[in-house]
């Protein structure tokens, strides 16, 4: 069965305060990196999945992202999906 590789990026919705991001932004200024206007912290999740075809893989990862990896009340997610062969990115 084909193997698919997905990267799901989860981030806090822009309307939700990200205090950890704000603290990191303050630390960046102390490091001497100036000019940062926005710094938001999210999660990157790598999933490898066997599925009969790309459409099925897409649907499964979308379900996973929407119902488990992200909480749509506070988070947005985006998805990059690729078919892999022998562990290599296609």
């Amino acid at each position, binding site marked *: 069965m084909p193997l698919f590789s997905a990267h799901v990026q989860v981030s*806090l919705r822009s*309307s*939700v*305060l*990200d*205090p*950890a991001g704000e*603290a990191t932004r303050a630390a960046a200024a102390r490091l001497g990196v100036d000019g940062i206007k926005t710094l938001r912290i999210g999660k990157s999740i790598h999933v490898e999945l066997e599925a009969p075809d790309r459409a099925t893989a897409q649907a499964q990862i979308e379900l996973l992202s929407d119902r*488990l*990896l992200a*909480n749509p*009340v*506070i988070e947005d997610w985006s998805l990059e999906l690729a078919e892999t062969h022998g562990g290599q990115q296609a």
Partner: protein
Amino acid sequence: MTVGIVVFPGSNCDRDVRWALEGCLHLSTRFLWHEERDLGGIDAVVLPGGFSYGDYLRCGAIARFAPVLEAVRDFAHGGGPVLGICNGFQVLTEMGLLPGALTRNQKLHFLCEPAPLEVRPGTCQWLKSYGEGEAINLPIAHGEGRYQCDADELQQLEGEGRVVLRYGQNPNGSVGDVAGLTNQAGNVLGLMPHPERACDPATGGTDGLRLLASVLA
């Protein structure tokens, strides 16, 4: 009267809740391991505080899929009283029994302190022995207790009288000073403060006793 106390890997207030219910209120309790599905003989359920499944992914996100919570969901939909304390509140929002979400405290610090609260019991079964607008004090102990929902939803919750506990001095940045919420039927209560830690004068007050005792009446 038997109160079921759900125990997840990582729960750490389950024994405190048992102590309060058995030691202070002389109720019988039963621990409900996260893999159990049988709530037979249980009259009320408490989801205690702690770090279920290590808070992996998000607080309450993994717990939501525990077998015991399928039974708790049915129990709540049937009108059974369900109380979620701290991590239990986070679990209730993740499983959709209560709206919104709990996020990182605004100032990032883990907060462990007494919290003055205003009670607006409305139809909430767990708060029926408190007066409208009564001021009480319960301890809080959380890093992710900032209640979050959008402005329309908050307005609706306020309009329906479901914001039943409010911080006197908002410690964590929660919208609307929300410290506790009930569902439409009033049988489910989620709150960040810990009533089980305020059941004996020796541990800092007794304002939590009536909340836990309400399941008796």
